[in-house]
């Protein structure tokens, strides 16, 4: 057993811990692992190049930028904020939990590309969330804004991750089925996807509770601020 390629992991850990720019850290780690496993420089460059080219779909989100940029210039975020500010029944927790449910259900139908950080969180969910938080706590600062945006992005991720595994034609389910089939165990995709359902419910409950507790925290701070004013 050749243990030397593990040094690539050490490069990653050290690079992230020392807060170097991640791009060269990742490339150096790949070069280190590859060379230590005995690949030649030519083979390694070809492997790096072709796997980079095969994952180009990961940059697809940049195509949303011109339309989103144009709309933001015309006041999309400001309008989303004003609109949410006027809707009295729509609290921060209801907004985020509603989005979480929708995102999970869409992912369960295999529609993961429909929403996302670029498509829905930046232009819509984050500004709406900010407006809903302003309603609770008027003096909402920059640090609060960062935290709220991070929670919106986290809600989007949790909804997507713990919805998509319930969809039978999703990569994850097919990967599990293919692995077992290779090793002589035949399973139907449905029997695998079914067991992702309880975890999906747990994820929904956990994230909803965390969003609700965040709202409670804002409400307490608002009450505290009002108390001081008296």
């Amino acid at each position, binding site marked *: 057993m050749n243990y030397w390629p593990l040094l690539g992991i050490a490069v990653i850990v050290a690079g992230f811990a020392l807060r170097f*720019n991640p791009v060269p850290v990742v490339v150096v780690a790949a070069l280190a692992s590859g060379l230590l496993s005995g690949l030649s420089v030519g083979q390694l460059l070809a492997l790096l190049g072709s796997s980079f080219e095969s994952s180009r779909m990961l940059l697809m989100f940049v195509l949303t930028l011109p339309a989103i940029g144009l709309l933001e210039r015309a006041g999309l975020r400001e309008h989303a904020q004003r609109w949410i500010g006027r809707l009295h029944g729509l609290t921060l927790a209801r907004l985020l939990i509603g989005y979480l449910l929708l995102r999970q259900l869409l992912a369960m139908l295999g529609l993961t590309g429909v929403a996302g950080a670029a498509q829905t969180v930046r232009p819509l969910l984050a500004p709406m969330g900010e407006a809903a938080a302003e309603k609770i706590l008027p003096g909402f600062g920059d640090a609060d804004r960062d935290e709220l945006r991070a929670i919106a992005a986290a809600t989007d991720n949790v909804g997507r991750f713990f919805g998509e595994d319930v969809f039978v034609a999703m990569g994850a389910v097919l990967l599990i089925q293919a692995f077992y089939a290779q090793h002589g165990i035949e399973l139907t995709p449905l029997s695998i996807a079914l067991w992702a359902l309880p975890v999906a419910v747990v994820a929904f409950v956990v994230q909803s509770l965390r969003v609700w507790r965040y709202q409670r925290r804002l409400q307490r701070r608002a009450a505290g601020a009002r108390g001081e004013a008296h």
Partner: protein
Amino acid sequence: MLRIEHAYWLIALFLLYAGLRNLRERRPWHGAFWIVLAALFGGGDWVLAQRAAGNTLPAQFAGGGVVLLAVLAPRLKRMAHAESRSVEQRLQSALALGHRLFVPALLIPLVTLLVALFDAHLAAGGHALFAAPQMTLTGLALACAIALFAAARVTRAPLQQGFAEGRRLLDAIGWAALLPLLLAALGEVFTRSGVGTAITALTTAWLPTGSALACLLAFALGMVLFTVIMGNAFAAFPVMMAGMGLPLLVHQHGAHPAILGSMGMLCGYCGTLLTPMAADFNLVPAALLELRDPYGVIRAQAWSAFWILAATVAMMCFLLFR
């Protein structure tokens, strides 16, 4: 027929535009970075086709391009361009346009949804508009183009303004946009160089394999840890299953294979919520939302990941060995 390659060419054109604008504004490092990336995107299909035909020279050049990007990345200072309009101007425009602003923004998810739902029917009738591989993403690219035209119409701005604004956002994201692709390539290199098998060999040497619970905990935590390292549960799954899941849990302790596979994969997903290596879910959104802390999204997710993982492992304890 629309294929995913057409979307890649659109991305290449947009990156080229961003690069040339930066060169003209005397920001040579930004310019060079986006132009090299545009070349990698435009030439990607040719590189992959040549490699499939047995000629690895173009792929080696692409690998050289990736190394060049890594050299350029630290020189990109993340300086946000000034917003082209003040808050007051934007607010006024928001008041004038109202809900019409939502239409193009919602067209992006809506058109993607329609393509995903209906093209399978068209394909069954022999009239497929979209090639089957990556159909949803091809639909997303089409949706973005339609949304851009709609946005230009609604805001009565020229299309060019859209490219300029898009490029402003792209420069604000900077090198973080590249990380997901690099990490995918790193995962491939790790797999090829046997990092996974080395790790499972090390773990199983220390494990009390007679205890089903110890094996389960090691498997679940291994999925999390390995996903944190690789940035992707898909890469961790075959390694952990071949090293521990199948020989120890299924064969030795009689675990239910469907539950082990499904919930084991989801343990890995909890790891995805925790790692900067899953850049497309954790670092790119932080850059897109202009958070000052690049790890802000991971911080917001950490406790959710912990509780979901704890509940999943508890469920596995009860369900696996019945």
